[in-house]
């Protein structure tokens, strides 16, 4: 695998490079861990009186799925949604259901429209985010809430705008994922 990091590094001989190898654990777990952290993060940054911060866990999931379609299996929505449900405040099961449906929907979309670019991916992600927030609201209201759709408008806008930024974050993590470490022994 090619090391693409731009930071200046000491020049190594091929033999020295061979002694450095990417950690399989980090390479495989990075997408999962980053989505889990993104699920927990919004709760910690501020205590807000209204829903404002976009669902970062969901944004991260869609971004990983679109940037590196081969890394996350199509069933990833089940375990990752379960963890998101523990922190989001939604009725339990909401994210398991919606994230699983998202993974299947993105799979179908990719099948129908195999060639894609930045704009189409952003449009697809925006539609996904807005649909996800509306479905989440329906579920939360079915669970006892009575919030109007208007309250969600700023969150939807922020979510759609934050998506490309999330894509850059995912790209960074994707590079760091293959960091080479010195192996001892």
């Amino acid at each position: 695998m090619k090391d693409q990091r731009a930071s200046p590094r000491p020049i190594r001989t091929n033999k020295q490079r061979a002694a450095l190898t990417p950690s399989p654990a980090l390479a495989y777990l990075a997408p999962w861990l980053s989505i889990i952290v993104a699920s927990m993060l919004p709760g910690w940054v501020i205590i807000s009186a209204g829903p404002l911060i976009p669902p970062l866990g969901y944004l991260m999931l869609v971004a990983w799925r679109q940037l590196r379609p081969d890394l996350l299996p199509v069933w990833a929505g089940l375990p990752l949604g379960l963890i998101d449900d523990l922190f989001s405040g939604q009725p339990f099961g909401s994210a398991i259901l919606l994230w699983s449906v998202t993974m299947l929907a993105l799979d179908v979309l990719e099948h129908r429209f195999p060639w894609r670019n930045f704009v189409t991916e952003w449009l697809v992600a925006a539609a996904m985010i807005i649909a996800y927030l509306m479905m989440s609201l329906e579920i939360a209201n079915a669970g006892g809430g009575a919030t109007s759709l208007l309250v969600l408008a700023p969150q939807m806008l922020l979510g759609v705008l934050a998506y490309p930024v999330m894509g850059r974050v995912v790209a960074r993590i994707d590079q760091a994922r293959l960091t080479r470490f010195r192996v001892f022994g």
Partner: protein
Amino acid sequence: MAPPVNRRSGNSRRAQYSRFYAYVAAVLGVLVGGYFLLTSLGNHAGFSWARGAAADVTEPVARVTTATRAGADSGIDTLAGFATWGSQNAQLKREVALARVQLAEAAATADENRRLKDLLHLSTQDPHAVATAWMVASSNTSSRRYATISAGSNQGVRPGMAVRTSLGLVGRVLETGHFAARVLLITDSESKVPVRRASDGTPAFAQGLGDGTLQIQLLTLGINPLKPGDAFVASGSGGLYWPGTPIAVVTSVTRDGAIAHMLSDPGASELVEVEPLWNPMDDPSLPAPSGPPQVAHPLPHPAKPAKPKPAHKHWL
């Protein structure tokens, strides 16, 4: 343009099976999610053990971010203070002069109150906080308004207890873990607090709207007496919230009530107090219920004193 993913599994039976089972697992995820969702919609307290455990495990990390958040807030306040100190100083001096007069008046009123209460054999009762805690997290992405506090059943926190700051009511405890508890904020659309207007005791309900404001619903019909600036406090009816806890101030009047802002903005309140359950029947300082009218001859079956009400369920 990104190239399409190679979806061909070829002749490898193993690759074909693994693709097939991945889709089976994905559909299973949809079914499992739907099943959990139906279960938790029917029973709100379901899976509270899982949420409690998750809150317990992440509480140390959340606490670190709380400290950072508090530091950032006070730093911004300090910087903002430099810009406005001159005019603010003059304004504060005027306010202090006014407040001194009002304080003397309030002291007189408090003294009068005490004497009147003595006459009625009522004692002033202040709730003794069960625990002090940090607000460590909140449900920022969901339309429901929950927060997590850094005290749980180990600190004596129980479901139903009121959570407040020095400024006013924040919410009530829904579920407890060992070191953390989940709080339903009063701005949640499911929270309904019985309130009264501080000035004259007009009864109302304060229901959350989910965006930091509260809808004040008057209990009495007729002309809407509310004005912007009216303060509402908890009335204590129905138990749960200690009477007199400040709740909200009216910002705009609607046809049949008003929209109010909560006094204790959860965004600005890092430290909260958990108050014990308020149950009017448990209060020894209240006079005994009057009971059946006294008659000259003794009754064959003396009326038993009213049984204390069981602890309130937290779902109203």
